[in-house]
Structure formats: C-alpha cells, structure tokens
C-alpha cells in the first residue's frame, strides 16, 4: 500500500519557495535594507521589518549543524524508508535550513559533515534534500 507523503497547504509567500524548488533552486531571503539573511521566506525582515526582501538561490553547500535519524516513521508514507535522517544545515550563505539527508550511512553522519543540496519530487511538491558532498564528486 502506498500512502502519499504529507503535503502542506501552501499559502501566500510559501508558494514561491516551492516553485523555486521545482526549478531546482534552494532559496533564502536577503534584506535589501539591512543585509540580513533569513530562511524561511517571510513578507517582512525579522531584523529590521523592511519589506524590501530578495529571494536568492543559495549555492546549496553547507555543513550539518545537527541531525537525527528516525528508526520509526513520522508518517505512514515513510514506513519503508526507516531509518531516515533529517538535518539542520548551515549554508555557506549564513542561513540555517531544514531538510533530509539522503545517500548517507547513518554510521557516517556527523555534525560538521559537508553537504550539498539535491531535490526530490514528491508528486505535486518538490523538496530540497541534502547529500554528503564528498569533495567534487557530487558537485552540481
């Protein structure tokens, strides 16, 4: 039996993020007024409340800030996927993003591991995921 992955109801500015992911871009925001970066995208700058915000494609490169490997599925759609790992990644652009780590043996996962973004199509939604960057081998 296949169950669909949980798909959020996208409202307002949330849609643009996933539209860009569909185009194979991981985006974050930079404030044109104060220069602060932020992820996830918002309609105001968290730092200075400016509305002059730019949605920028990140390099997709960063390091694992922390991780957790799930040995029990967080949703019926993922029962066959365990163990799987979710991560917080510090991008080189200076923002922290959330995602999944793929193509990694749980025994090799550690904080500080360099990763690079990839994308997964989940039916109507495309989401960013990360894989170990292993030098240039997996560079995009």
């Amino acid at each position, binding site marked *: 039996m296949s169950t669909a992955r949980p798909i959020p109801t996208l409202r307002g500015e949330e849609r643009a993020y996933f539209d860009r992911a569909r185009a194979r871009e991981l985006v974050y925001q930079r404030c044109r007024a104060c220069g602060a970066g932020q992820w996830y995208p918002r309609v105001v700058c968290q730092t200075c409340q400016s509305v002059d915000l730019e949605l920028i494609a990140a390099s997709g490169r960063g390091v694992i800030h*922390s991780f*957790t*490997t799930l040995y029990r599925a*967080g949703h019926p759609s*993922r029962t066959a996927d365990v163990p799987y790992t*979710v991560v*917080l990644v510090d991008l080189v652009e200076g923002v922290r993003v959330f995602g999944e780590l793929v193509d990694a043996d749980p025994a090799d996962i550690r904080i500080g591991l360099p990763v690079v973004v990839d994308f997964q199509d989940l039916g109507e939604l495309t989401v960013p995921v990360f894989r170990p960057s292993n030098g240039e081998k997996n560079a995009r």
Partner: protein
Amino acid sequence: MRGEIAVVGIGEVDLFESKGRSPAGLMAEASRLAVADAGLKMTDIDGLFTASSVYYTPSLTFAEYAGLNPRYSDSTVVGGASFEAHVGHAAAAIRAGLCDYALITYGSTQRSDRGKLVSQAEWLPYEQPYAMIHPISPMGLIAHRHMHQFGTTSEQLAHVAVSARSWALRNPQAPYRTPLTVDEVLSSPVISSPLHKLDCCLVTDGGAAVVLCSADRARDLPKPPVYVLGFGEAANHRNISAMPDLTTTRATESARRAYQMAGLRPTDIDVANVYDAFTISLLILLEDLGFVPKGEGGPFVESGAIAPGGSVALNPNGGGLSYSHPGMLGLFLLTEAVRQLRGEAGERQVGGATTALAHGMGLTLGAHATVILGTEDTR
C-alpha cells in the same frame, strides 16, 4: 506583584487512564476538586484560564461544559508552558480587578486516544513534507548538538530518566512501581537518534486544576495560601528550524525575570518542578534555570544530583518521565509544587520546603514560563 496573589486550591484526576471522562470532563472533575479544596463554590469562579490541544477555543468550550460565566477568560496556548503563563496572566488580571477567583484547568485523553488523530498541530510547510516525528525528532537534533558541544552522553541522559523513576517510587499514584536502570533506558528502542523510547515522557491521560485569588481573600480560605513570589515568560521559536541556539533557550530569560521578582536565586529553591518531556530537554532546562552551569548538565545528573538525596529536589512526584504526562505537563508541575509547600506530599515530601519553582516548557523548548512559589514565611 510579589506575594500579592496566592494559589488556594488544587485538583488532579485520572492521571494515567481516563475513567470514561472526555478532556472537558477531566477538566470539570479536576476543577470541582480544586474549587472544593479552596473552600469555594464553582459560582465563585469569575476568571477562566485554559489551554488544549483538542479544543480550538478551550476557555469557551470549558465555560459551556461546566456552566461557568467568567467575566475574564484567557486561552493562551504556548504548548506545555501555557499553564505557568496562565499563573502570571491570572495574577495580573486579579490585580487589575478583572476577576477575583481565577481557575486554571487542563484535561487530556492522550493515552486513550493513542493511534487516533489528536493533535491540531499546525506544521511549518518547510518541515512537514519530510515527516519527522514531532516533538521527538527536534529533540534528537537538540540532543546531538548538546553532545557535540559539551560531550554529553546517552548514559548521562539515561540518568535523568532513572532519577525520575527513583522519585516516582515514593509516589503511590505513579504508574510504574519498579526501579529503572541506565541499561534499560539504553536498550530501549531508538526512536529518533540519539533518543530512546525511555528518554521520552509517558503518554497518559489526566486532568488538573488550580485556583488563585488575592492574598487578602486567601486568608479566609481553609488551606495555607501558597504565594506567587516570582513570574517570567519568554519564547524563542515555534519550529525547530527557527530555534536560534539548539543548546541554550530563553528559559534563561523567563527564569531571570522570575528570580528577580522573587528576590531569590537557584540555590534558594527547595523544590524544583521542571518540565521533563524528554531527558535532554530537562538537562538543558537545569542549565538554563541556573541549577548547573551551561554544558555541565551531563556530569551533574550522572552524579545523582537530581535523584532523591541529591542536591536538587527535582520533580518529586516522578515528573513527566515517571508520573504523568497527558499531552501537556505544565499544570501538574504547579500542583506538585503546591502540595510540597503545603506539606501534603507524603513519602516524597521535601522536608521543610518553603520555596518551589515550576518551569513550563512549550513545544520543542520554544516557549518558557517560570513561576516561583512560597509559603507564608517567604512572603
């Protein structure tokens, strides 16, 4: 505000499994017990404070269910910390003359509901598609980071659960009657690394309620008043991807505000009731509340400091890890603090306790509210 408001009644009901009561029914029964404990009638209650994960408008739902007609109501929901927040909000409302007798109540059938949809949790769209386990996976992210920064180990975390069980063995109402070992915690299944099943709180039903009023009114009531000496709130995030620092929370700020108002320091606290949804969240809160310096929580709990006879009398009823955790624990921290300050805690009574702290934590260490309580002598 210090010493001007008192807790005058407490009630708890069905702490493991609901005996046929709905969440509102648990709230109603706990409220009836708390109001009777205070020597009052339900019709005296004119301020209502409640939070819920099953009712969208909990104060409205409960007022209807219990036949209350409050002139002041507050459904502030910041997860498990809601009820400590309600203490501050109720104290402010009483001082402003907006109500005289405030009831804080909560009920949940989380254990009986197991496997059914019980949560109204709204997901951040940027996290939801990955299907982590909320709130265990965010706590796993937090735990790995604490281990990375400070060398904390799974064995040390296990000591938190073991200490909680040691306390619970002194509480006849606690559900598990045998000691727990570090090995048992470590050999329980890993749910979301590095956290094992026994690093997580119990899943129970339960209801609780407390009644507050002014110190002047409290003097006429049967039980010794337990005074609100200090209060502080703070919040840092709703979603784990927005947590500013995975290993230091704004409990530091809520606690600083509460200690300052009370004129007390961590070493002045006789009984600490600290939200223990997970071993790691408890460890971090011990650091942030000032019971041990940042990063030293692991060796501290490993030394037996939070077990009976240790340097901090922590969650004497067994806490969320070994007493009861019906979805949100916050109100049960307050009821135990009050019992301890009244000297009603039986075999687990902390001798001569005159001050108690109750710290509520909401969601994944995202919301914080600290309440410091004291007896007449400390006022």
